[in-house]
């Protein structure tokens, strides 16, 4: 097994990326010291690495211990923050179906979520998690970007005289790309801590919104400059018609879908994390359990 993969696995439950990085650095240094010793005893480097990893003990147990000691469960304030963020996002998403001004609540929901995800001593962590989400989960960013492109270009394929020509896009989007984006995101959630998962979700949402808004801007600008081609315009000219061209991509479907995707992502993360941790955020006093269990697994000679 690759040492870095092993270190990544055992630290995946630590919420703060900075702390997880530091723990990985220390564990890898320890493994390197063991491996050096074993190589000096005559093992080759591959055998030494395998033996060094085995000496570190059960990786699942280590992962749980590290998560509970270094990345403790969410505080009540954080849980309240996530609930408030979800409520704001839901109201914003539903409201923006009829009035795009509700999109402001989506932004507020996102800010509350970022605040709730921050731990008191580590304010940079959400930004580091976001950057890591972009770097490590390319498949999430790619599928959500594709969704954004389709959302931004929706007026081209969902309206106007050429609509039948593009009618295949909707089922492809609904049955292929959306499930692919969802599966990629849930897979990323299943192997990361909460903050890292929020970073991945944020990266996916930013990719979706960024590509959607930029492609929407490009189309709106094109129709603004060339009004004769606006026969294909659908949703930019209905609820968002009163807005100037540069604000139109934020109106109606794109704004609402960002809200729905945010909400789906937060709910998905909540479910995955609740299953993974066995309702850990709702339990108290669990920090010492793994350490107490350590004493029960003694063999001869005593290994604790």
């Amino acid at each position, binding site marked *: 097994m690759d040492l870095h993969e092993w270190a990544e696995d055992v630290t995946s439950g630590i919420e703060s990326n900075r702390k997880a990085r530091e723990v990985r650095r220390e564990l890898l240094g320890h493994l390197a010291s063991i491996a050096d010793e074993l190589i000096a005893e005559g093992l080759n480097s591959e055998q030494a690495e395998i033996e060094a990893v085995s000496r*570190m003990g059960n990786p699942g147990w280590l992962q749980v211990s590290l998560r509970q000691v270094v990345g403790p469960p969410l505080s009540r304030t954080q849980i309240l923050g996530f609930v408030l963020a979800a409520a704001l996002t839901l109201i914003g998403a539903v409201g923006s179906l009829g009035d795009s001004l509700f999109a402001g609540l989506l932004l507020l929901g996102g800010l509350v979520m970022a605040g709730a995800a921050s731990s008191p001593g580590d304010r940079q962590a959400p930004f580091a998690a976001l950057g890591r989400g972009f770097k490590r989960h390319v498949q999430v960013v790619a599928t959500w970007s594709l969704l954004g492109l389709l959302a931004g270009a929706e007026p081209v394929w969902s309206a106007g005289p050429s609509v039948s020509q593009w009618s295949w896009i909707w089922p492809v989007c609904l049955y292929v790309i959306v499930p692919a984006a969802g599966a990629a995101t849930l897979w990323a959630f299943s192997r990361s801590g909460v903050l890292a998962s929020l970073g991945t979700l944020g990266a996916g949402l930013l990719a979706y919104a960024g590509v959607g808004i930029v492609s929407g801007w490009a189309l709106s600008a094109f129709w603004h400059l060339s009004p004769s081609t606006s026969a294909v315009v659908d949703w930019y000219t209905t609820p968002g018609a009163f807005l100037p061209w540069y604000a139109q991509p934020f109106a109606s479907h794109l704004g609402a879908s960002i809200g729905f995707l945010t909400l789906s992502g937060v709910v998905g993360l909540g479910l995955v994390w609740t299953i993974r941790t066995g309702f850990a955020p709702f339990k108290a006093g669990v920090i010492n359990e793994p350490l107490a269990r*350590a004493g029960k697994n003694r063999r001869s000679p005593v290994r604790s």
Partner: protein
Amino acid sequence: MDALLPSVPALLVLKVLEQGPAHGYEIVRRVERTSEGVLALKEGTLYPLLYKMEHEGLVSAAWTDVAGGRQVRIYTLTGLGRRHLVEEEEIWTIRSGGVNRVLSTEGAATNGLA
């Protein structure tokens, strides 16, 4: 009721750090060497324990360069850790002595009944 005996791994870590600052690998080796191979502190237990102790202020840690261009995190016993060690050692001595006395008494009683 608190635990009958203090946590053995915690006691061992604090005791070997009393000899001087050490990184994780060195702590494991010191325990093995000092106990003449009877006790082996499992690495998977050590790090969660060290982080917990650091969080509680019993040890402090700092990254240091070592030979080979590697960096290690050196743990040092704090004043609080030193006081905690003295208390835990006392508890260990008193209670483990008590456990030993109970065990030996129980053996004698069983022999008497037989």
